[in-house]
């Protein structure tokens, strides 16, 4: 699912102007959906409209939002989550045991589970599937970095980590770690060998046929048109309500119109404003909530790139100079101020009461204290994308205005996302407005923000800058007791809020809209929607 690259590049809701026009067009009609004819679906077919971001239906090659929806329906994982909850639940594994130091996890597999072709699922399939992810070295490979997977009998799988890793139960819920039918995939060119990145040719095969044990099977696949899923007759769990699920690649503007005319239909990419305009429509249900995505500012710590930002007083002035409330209001119903870097709905997320509050007097004082005259900073942001319907330009302009009020001149620099990413990674920017989407619902995914971490290193914040914080991060990332871990992550974020080159801004609003007769219309932080959990009232 990741944030600032695959999603950035592919989520071309660059048709935002188009969407805006569509909002304007529909604004005055509000709830004019009485045309109710079931045009786009019949009983037994669920239609899900979304802007496709998918590169493969092969779980081992897939880390994209649409791919995650599809793979979550096609493939079982060792553990899973239900609805919008991030609580880990049994799936292929009925139970697991962690060693006290959180380095060894032993999973007991469910008996009697069969793949869609009738072959029984065993530990060999799990080992093959996970090793294949590691050795393919495709986008999801990093999820299993440093992990070793072995079988202990036909129904026991052991995952060992070189360092303590309490995030493992959460990580194995990722649809990219879906369990494939080893025999069938090997028969079609699949490999889990060390050289799989060169020898595995099963990607195309898995784009045509699914080889999983999940609630659905793949019947039609196209990355820019339509993906059709059919209920798996061999599924071990509760039968899904819909015999057929059709995912269609639609712009947000089309989704807004389609969901109002269709039945058994869900739209995934509407902005919270669009969703709000549909709340009075009795034939629809519209839910808005805080998305687990995080908008933040990041300053360089390299005095050669910006002597202004390397000044601690200026960093703190920025922190207190921003009008967070105004920003939340701009982002629409459901958005919240991010108190820390970890989303509030995750373990270790800081409640909003901890959030930094704007204090103009204090910020002005800090600017004066810095001793710098007319401090000027360039703020760069990706210009051609939006996240949860919110454009970076909107927030960048707010930052420019807010910091202008405390005496820091901001020059905004809009850069198309592809060159933006390259320059961002090469420490070329002074101040960046960026975003992070969770790869899995666990605070360990945010360790990259600590000094020396991969995100911090982009703008030259080395481990040597704050060794105590690095040590605390190591402890938090390896503690197996979750209550203790949550406390440590909260501490870390409070420290980051006191002094760091990161400025958490907001968690934007996310929306899901569906026909009112549907149940299970809920957004999951990892795979957006579990189509198998959608039913009818």
């Amino acid at each position, binding site marked *: 699912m*990741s944030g600032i690259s695959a999603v950035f590049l592919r989520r071309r809701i660059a048709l935002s102007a188009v969407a805006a026009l569509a909002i304007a067009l529909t604004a005055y009609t509000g709830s004019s959906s009485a045309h109710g004819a079931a*045009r786009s*679906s019949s009983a037994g077919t669920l239609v899900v409209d979304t802007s496709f971001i998918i590169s493969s239906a092969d779980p081992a090659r897939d880390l994209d939002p649409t791919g995650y929806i599809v793979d979550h329906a096609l493939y079982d994982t060792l553990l899973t989550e239900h609805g919008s909850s991030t609580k880990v639940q049994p799936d292929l594994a009925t139970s697991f045991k962690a060693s006290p130091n959180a380095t060894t996890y032993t999973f007991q597999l469910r008996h009697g589970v069969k793949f869609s072709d009738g072959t029984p699922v065993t530990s060999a399939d799990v080992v093959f599937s996970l090793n294949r992810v590691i050795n393919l070295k495709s986008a999801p490979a*990093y999820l299993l970095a440093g992990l070793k997977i072995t079988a202990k009998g036909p129904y026991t799988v052991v995952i060992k980590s070189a360092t303590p890793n309490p995030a493992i139960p959460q990580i194995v819920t990722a649809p990219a770690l879906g369990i494939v039918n080893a025999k069938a995939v090997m028969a079609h060119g699949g490999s889990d060998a060390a050289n799989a990145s060169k020898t595995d040719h099963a990607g195309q095969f898995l784009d045509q046929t699914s080889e999983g044990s999940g609630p659905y099977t793949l019947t039609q696949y196209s990355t820019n048109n339509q993906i059709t899923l059919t209920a798996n007759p061999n599924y071990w769990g509760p039968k899904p309500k819909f015999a057929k699920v059709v995912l269609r690649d*639609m712009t947000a503007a089309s989704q807004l119109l389609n969901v109002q005319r269709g039945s058994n239909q869900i739209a995934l990419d509407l902005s919270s404003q669009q969703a709000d305009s549909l709340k009075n429509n009795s034939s629809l249900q519209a839910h808005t909530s805080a998305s687990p995505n995080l908008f933040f500012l990041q300053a360089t710590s390299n005095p050669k790139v910006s002597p202004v930002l390397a000044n601690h007083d200026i960093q703190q002035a920025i922190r207190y100079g921003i009008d967070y409330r105004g920003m939340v209001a701009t982002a629409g119903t459901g958005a919240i101020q991010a108190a820390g870097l970890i989303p509030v709905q995750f373990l270790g997320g800081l409640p909003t009461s901890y959030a930094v509050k704007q204090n103009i007097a204090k910020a002005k004082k800090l600017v004066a204290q810095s001793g710098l005259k007319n401090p000027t900073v360039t703020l760069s942001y990706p210009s051609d994308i939006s996240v949860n319907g919110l454009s970076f330009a909107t927030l960048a302009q707010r930052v420019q205005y807010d910091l202008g009020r405390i005496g820091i001149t901001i020059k905004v620099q809009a850069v198309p996302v592809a060159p933006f*990413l*390259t320059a961002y990674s090469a420490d070329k920017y002074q101040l960046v407005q960026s975003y992070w989407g969770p790869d899995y619902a666990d605070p360990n995914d945010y360790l990259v923000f600590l000094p020396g971490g991969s995100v911090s290193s982009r703008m030259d914040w080395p481990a040597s800058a704050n060794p105590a914080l690095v040590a605390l991060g190591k402890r938090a990332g390896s503690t197996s007791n979750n209550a203790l871990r949550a406390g440590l992550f909260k501490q870390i974020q409070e420290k980051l809020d006191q002094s760091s080159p990161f400025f958490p801004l907001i968690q934007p609003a996310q929306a899901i809209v569906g026909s009112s007769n549907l149940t299970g219309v809920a957004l999951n932080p990892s795979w957006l929607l579990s189509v198998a959990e959608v039913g009818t009232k």
Partner: protein
Amino acid sequence: MALSIGIVVVSFVLTHMVPGNPALANLGQNPTPSEIRVFDQRNGLDKPLPVQLGLYFVHLLQGNLGTSQQTGDPVAHDLSMAIPATAELAITSIVIALIFGVGFGLVAALRRDGVTDFVLRILSLVGVSVPTFWLALIALYLLFFKLGIFPGGSRLSPTDTAPPHVTGMYTVDALLAGRWSTFWDALHHLLMPAMILAAANMGLLTRYTRSAVLEVMEHDYIRAAKAKGLSRRTVVFGHILRAALPSIVTVIGLAFANVMTGAVLVENIFSWPGIGQYGYQSSTTLDLPAIAGVSLFIAVVYVVVNFVVDVLYGVLDPRVRVE
């Protein structure tokens, strides 16, 4: 041929000069150096640009357009799926534009300065000047959302299944398979985007046809034809339109250019999985082989269309036939 090679070279070099990194664009937010290395090796990005270009041409001669980084499938396969979808849309739209454009232009010229002429001229002006994406959204809103006359995008209803693949054009394939309901469904989905795509060309053709016909009508032989008592129909279709056709054919070359650019917008708005959408998505993900493949295809279309237009000149006007 030389033109196509030139276009491929230019598009190849330009896309490689964009200061973006395809590996970063495709590997999520946390790629390790070894993942980036594997990605670059897999896609041949670790070699110098001239070598990459040379290899591209060698593979091209073998009919291999490379593998799309975005879909993971061979570009030739992706194109073979996208081209029929665009062809179906483009041909339908050109036919609509020709019938209405030439018809309106002829009527406007024959009723010169009358109310009909005035209305048709306004209509053609609107067709030429209104942005395609705006027209598409208005049509979607009115004809789909408010009135429900047409479906709201994509090639078939979700409840229908695609006909067996023969040409890739759903209307044709459905007819070949004898599936009438699928044929109507496909046609129903095809008409609105095709009409939107036709709007600009219709305006263009109306204007050109009108002025070409007016020019021909001034000639003495038309007056002579009328004077010797030929029927109005023979004069209009046998003499006036025949003489005006070469200028109209010139416009068809332009019309194809309009269809190719318009397809990017219309296909995106109507979720039509054709070349326009494929090209758009590959350019936003820096999918270099796919961009080169799409450029090559469009170059070939232009070359072929211009060739056909040149041949048609000869057919229509004996004076320009090669001795």
